[in-house]
Each structure stands twice: as structure tokens, then as C-alpha cells.
């Protein structure tokens, strides 16, 4: 021990200053993109810089972002859930049927979120319990959940929701701030704390980085994964309540294709699709970026199909730039 004591050197906790680490982060780059789009939009359209218009724009992303928070954790842990949009449809169908039967607003909310919980538990059981690959399982449950909606509804729609139910998708907490936006901010904080400040969040990162090492370190890998699927299902249920409330009706095609937009938001936010890395702050900024792009293009009367081309390009470019930049740096 004596020779070790004599050669003892102090290892610093961290390298560089806090600001230099922050400046090098993905989130700051993405924030820069968001600002650019904001400035561009405000020049391109005279209607953009209007508090109520901007408030309307948030509805483009709030519901998707709620799911994206939970999805981010799932992707960081090395799994994925492609059935989230189908869970929205099934939960919305369940709420529609219940509303038809005369159940009140609190009951509808419980049914919506409860359906999400059950669907999430089903996914979790198949992935964590039976150790099946999540991408296959959730492609299967995607067809299953939405298929049930189609069987129940056919080409019909549920539309008779109680008046008070409209608050979740159409109500405002204060001035231009909608209930959905407030919920989005609250959930961002809850998931941010869960991922970055708790033991559970650390376990999520370790599982995504090295599942073997996680298991060898005493982390209950299956239990963590099950909880993550449960959370994602619940968030899809919450999003279903908001979306159904906003639209005031349920069709089986509700939220069609949202699973890919949610995954896009997560990846754009800097979450590694291979697992192990990413932040909630990144997902929040990515949500704003996607919302601003679609809103700005909408003001310019760009059709929806062109918008999706833009979002796709945005995703590829933002992913490619840092990788190409690193390669150039390595070559020189």
C-alpha cells in the first residue's frame, strides 16, 4: 500500500468547464436549428409572430411529444414500441363506446388511460416476460390493437362526448397556454427528472449500453423494461384522451402513422436508436422543431405530403451533419 500512497495523484471529477461541455452538446445544436426555423418563419409569413397562432401551433406536437418522452426512455434502454398509435386508436375507441353508454368525463379519462396501461402491460409481458424482440412484438400489436378498433367501428365513428370532456384538447389554463401545452411542460419535467436524476433512469442507460453488464450488476433488467412499456402505454392513453377530446370524435384511423413521427421526434432529439444515449431536453427541443416546421409550412399553404418530405429531410440532415463533421475532423 505504501508505494501506492506515495504515487497518489488527484484525478479531477470532470474535464473542461460546464459551458464548454454544454456548447458541444447535441441539444445546443438542435436549439440553434429551432431558432433558425423560428426566424425564417417570422420573415416568411406575417401571421407567424402572433401569440394565438403560435399557441395553435403547439397542438402539432404536444400529444406526440407526451408519447415521445416515454418512447425516449424505451429507446435508450434498447427497445422500441411501434404500437403507440394503435394504442391511441384502441383507447379512443374504448372511450367512444363508453361515452355512447353514458359514462361521464372522469370515467372516460380512466378508461382511456386504463386501456393504454393494459396495452403497455401486454407489450411489456411479451418483450420482458417472454424475451421476444420488441420491434417484432410491437409491429404485431400495432396491427392487433388497431384491428380491434376497426372491428368495433367499421366505417362508423363515435362522436357523442360529454361537453366537459372537451377541456383536455380544447381548454386553456391561462391566456394562450392550452391545457395540452401545460401538460406537455409538466410531463417533460417529470420524465426529465425520472431519466436524469433517479436510480431508475441510470438503470435505463446501463441497460441500453450493455445489457449483460446491467444483469451482472444486479439490475432487474426485465422489470425495468416492463415498467418502460407500461409507461409508454400509459402515455399513449393520455395522448389518446387529449387527441380524442380535441377532435371530439373517434374513427379507427385516428392517429394513423403517428408511431413513426414519435420515433422521428425521439431520434431527432439526439436519442441513439442503438440505445444508451439521449436526453429529455433534446426530445423537447425536437418537438418544437417539428412543430415549428409543420406550422410554418402550413402558413405558407404547403400541402401535408410535402411537409412530411421536409420532416424526413430535416431528420436525415440533422443526423448526418454531426457524423460527417466528426469524420472530417478525424481525417484532418
Amino acid at each position, binding site marked *: *500500500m505504501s508505494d*501506492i500512497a506515495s*504515487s*497518489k495523484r488527484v*484525478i*479531477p*471529477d*470532470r*474535464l473542461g468547464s460546464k459551458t464548454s461541455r454544454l456548447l458541444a452538446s447535441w441539444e445546443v445544436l438542435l436549439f440553434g436549428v429551432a431558432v433558425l426555423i423560428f426566424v425564417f418563419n417570422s420573415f416568411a409569413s406575417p401571421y407567424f409572430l402572433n401569440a394565438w397562432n403560435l399557441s395553435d401551433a403547439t397542438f402539432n406536437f404536444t400529444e406526440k411529444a407526451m408519447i415521445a418522452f416515454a418512447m425516449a426512455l424505451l429507446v435508450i434502454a434498447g427497445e422500441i414500441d411501434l404500437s403507440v398509435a394503435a394504442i391511441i386508436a384502441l383507447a379512443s375507441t374504448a372511450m367512444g363506446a363508453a361515452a355512447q353508454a353514458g359514462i361521464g368525463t372522469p370515467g372516460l379519462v380512466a378508461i382511456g388511460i386504463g386501456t393504454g396501461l393494459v396495452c403497455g402491460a401486454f407489450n411489456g409481458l411479451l418483450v420482458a416476460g417472454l424475451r421476444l424482440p420488441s420491434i417484432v412484438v410491437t409491429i404485431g400489436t400495432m396491427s392487433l390493437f388497431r384491428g380491434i378498433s376497426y372491428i368495433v367501428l367499421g366505417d362508423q365513428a363515435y362522436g357523442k362526448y360529454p361537453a366537459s370532456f372537451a377541456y383536455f384538447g380544447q381548454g386553456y389554463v391561462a391566456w394562450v397556454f392550452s391545457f395540452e401545452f401545460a401538460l406537455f411542460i409538466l410531463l417533460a419535467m417529470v420524465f426529465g427528472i425520472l431519466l436524469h*436524476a*433517479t*436510480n*431508475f*433512469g*441510470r438503470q435505463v*442507460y*446501463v441497460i441500453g*449500453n*450493455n445489457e*449483460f*453488464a*446491467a*444483469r*451482472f*450488476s*444486479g*439490475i*432487474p433488467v426485465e422489470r425495468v423494461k416492463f415498467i418502460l412499456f407500461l409507461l409508454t402505454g400509459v402515455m399513449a392513453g393520455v395522448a389518446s384522451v387529449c387527441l380524442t377530446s380535441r377532435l371530439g370524435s373517434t374513427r379507427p384511423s385516428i392517429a394513423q402513422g403517428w408511431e413513426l413521427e414519435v420515433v422521428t421526434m425521439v431520434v431527432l432529439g439526439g436519442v441513439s436508436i442503438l440505445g*444508451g*444515449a439521449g436526453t429529455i431536453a433534446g426530445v423537447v427541443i425536437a418537438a418544437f422543431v417539428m412543430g415549428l416546421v409543420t406550422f410554418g409550412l402550413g402558413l405558407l399553404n404547403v400541402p401535408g405530403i410535402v411537409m412530411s418530405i421536409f420532416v424526413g429531410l430535416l431528420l436525415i440532415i440533422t443526423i448526418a451533419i454531426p457524423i460527417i463533421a466528426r469524420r472530417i475532423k478525424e481525417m484532418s
Partner: protein
Amino acid sequence: MNGVTKIQDRSPQPAPTTEAMPILEMRGISQIFPGVKALDGVSIKLYPGQVTALIGENGAGKSTLVKILTGIYRPNEGEILIDGVPTTFTSAQAAIDAGVTAIHQETVLFDELSVAENIFLGHAPRTRFGTIDWRRINSGAKALMLQLESEIDPTIRLRDLSIAQRHLVAIARALSVEARIVIMDEPTAALSRKEIDDLFRIVEGLKRQGKAILFISHKFDEVYEIAENFVVFRDGRAVGQGRLKQTPQDEIVRLMVGRDVKDVFPKVEVRIGAPVFRVENYCHPTEFRDISFELRRGEILGLYGLIGAGRSELCQSLFGVTRPSSGRLVLEGKSLDIRSSGDAIRAGIVYVPEERGRHGLALPMPIFQNMSLPSLGKTSRSGFLKAANELALARKYAERLDLRAAALSVPVGTLSGGNQQKVVIGKWLATQPKVIVLDEPTKGIDIGSKAAVHAFIGELAAEGLSIIMVSSELPEILGMSDRVMVMREGLAAGIFEREALSAEALVRAATGNQ
């Protein structure tokens, strides 16, 4: 040693060797990696129609030699002569073109392809239109399999074959390129006795065709049965070679182990205390049976055996990663029910795995987060992380282990192998265990770090920790252990007290030779 007499009974082979011309000769080959001289001036000769056994401990340089012969590494010094002509292997293909082929421990074949496709992959006969000539592939494969006395249908997919049959396919593949020099890298590791007999008949056939064979094995009985010549490697040097017939086994073991163990591993004298941990009749459905032993306070129990003897599997089941089929664990008088590694950690048993990167660390994550991982319950407050506590814990063990790192927040993956190992050990010490299981604690780390790890293991024992140390390196086992349990084919082949320890006794117990 019936192996020796057998050889004498049947030796119609051309009389050796001094006058015969070697097919392949390596002269003064050295291979230098950063910090390690993997091979140091090695010279060997391979003769037609003869088997040369390459013997040595893990890490002695056998695999490096195979990689040079198959064109994967290019040696820093020395030359390779084929039929007396100097040759350099610029690529794996160049080695194949020169007539060298290797059958590896884990044969590199493709499960989803047919037997014939596997055999001819990369050199398939073509039709005149340039497409693959399936008729010739299948008939060629059939002919090769018949040559090996096997009637495996060449169109069957590889995944449907047994391990022994796959070996035949690998051999057929080696023959299909008309190799003159065949390297067999522990070909019998996964085979039953009958399959080994079949394999040896094939080897005899290859000898009759005049091929030179380099046969790598740990098992002395096999070596004496099949080989004419031997080369012993130790620490990257060829320390002895000659005719097996004239060399007793003890001599070869001595060459293998070599150095005077006590000088390299100064054992810290520790007062060994009362029994702490007891394993009773531990069984696993496939890997080991009926293992019982006792561990005392401050004691280092060495666990020696060949690869595949069930040592790592035993350790992992003690740690709750795999479940035993029966048996009992007792720690400090209390019976344990360990269902997961979490249970084991809480009980005070920890396991430092052999494969650090794969099982021990989350390489992209910071040092301090890796260190604190199994101790999060202690560093956090009601489920919330406390980075300051984590850093303090990491600092304590980093300093104790003399970790070399730029900062505690850098990813573990940026550290050298030795320093990574320190992080793994620190991570487990931080849980303040009672029993620590070290699986090949110095595998793949440089000499300097090795000595530090050994010194540290000694210190831990002195502090009263009970240690189980798995190692395939005899000097390490002999130098560090208070007692040694030898495992062979899933069974405890003997427990040796320190006074009775000798390299010869351990190797005999591990290989099953009397």
C-alpha cells in the same frame, strides 16, 4: 501412457526427420503488439506426413502463431519458408494460396448455407457462363465427405448438423483448397471420445497423403496418441521441441510451466480465519455436478482447470446469473437463496467477470457511474441520484487502485485494459462484499498492471475478504492461492492444500492423466 506405446506399434511413417525436408519452416519469428511481445524469435519446422503438437498455456503465443500462418498478422521479424523458399503472407488469401489452411476451435462456418456451399465458399467451381456450377459443387462435396468416411448429404443445411459433423465439414473445407499444411486449433475441445477417435482416423489419412499438420491441444493423452513431434511455447518463446517418443510427459509439463513460481508472485502471508462460505453439492443441469467446498476468512481459493471444465459456469451460478439445479450455499452460517445477481450482491457475494467489456462495464458511460452502479442504493437518497456521493465513492476506490484516468467523468472505454479491470474491481469492492469471485483477473492485461492486480488481491485477503480466483495460468494459481480446487469436465477433480501444490499435480488433475 498407452498413447506412447500405440505410437510405437504403428509407425509405418517415413523415418524422420533430420534428413527430410520440411514443407514449412518459420525462422526467428517475432510479433510485437503495443506493450507486449507476443512472439519472440520463434523457429519451428513442419514435416510432410507428420503431426507436430503445439503445446503451451493460454497466452503463450499459440494463437498469434496461427494468425501469422494464416496471413492475418504479419510478423515484425523473421521469415517463413515454404519448400525452402522464403514467402510472405500478405493476406489470408495468400496463405491459402500457399497451401496453409486452419481448422479453428470455433469453426467459422455458416449455419444457413448447405454443407457443399460451406465447403466451396469463395472458391466455387463456375460454369462457362460464370454462374456457380451446382452439380460440381455437390458432387465435389460428396467426394470430399466420402474421403472423410462420412455420408453427410452435401445439400443439407449446416444448422442441422451436430458439432462433430460440422467439424468434418470444416475439415472437408480445408481439404477442398488442396492444402498441404493443416493447422488444427484445439479440434477436440467440443468432441466426445468416439468423435475424437473418428477425427484421429482422418488425421492419420491426412498424414498418409503427406500433409504436414500442426495440432494444438491441451490434452496430453491426445497429443501422445496422434503427434510425432512437439513444440512447447512459453511467454512467446519456443522453449523446447523434439520427438514425443523420446520425451516423458513430466518433461513437457516442466517446459510449459518453466519459471520459478515463487519469485514472480510474492505471496502475502495472511492469517487465515474461520470458515465463511460453504458450497454444498452444487449441481447444474449441463455444466457441473456435485461441487462442494469451503472458503475461510482471508483465504484465496484458486480454481484451476481446462477451458470448458465448468469453472466460469460454477462462479456465475454462485453469483445468481444462472440457476443451479440443486445444492446449497451457506454464508456465515446462514443458508442463502440466490435467485438473481441482485440477491448475491445484497448477500455479499460479488463476481468480477472474465469478459470485462462484455459483462463488466458499460464502456460508453463515465468511470464514476460504472463504479457506483452496484452501490446506487448507498449513494442515492430515496431513489434520487447524488452525483457528489457517486464521485466521492469512485474517487476513494480510484485512488486505492491507483487508477490512471484523465477524469472520473471520462468513458470507461477510453481506458487501457488494466485500468478498465481496476474500475471493475473497484466497482465490486465498493459494495463491501464478504466473498469476491475473480474470473481470470489478469487475462489480457499488460505485465505491469498484472503485478499491481496481484498485489491488490493479496491486500484484499489480508483485510479479511474471502477470494475465489479462477485462472488458467498455472504460475498465477500456484503463486497466489492458499488452496486450489481443480475442475475437470464439470467435476471437482481434487482440492490441493498449499503445501501439496505443484504444477505437475494440478495439470494431471486437470487433464485426467495419472
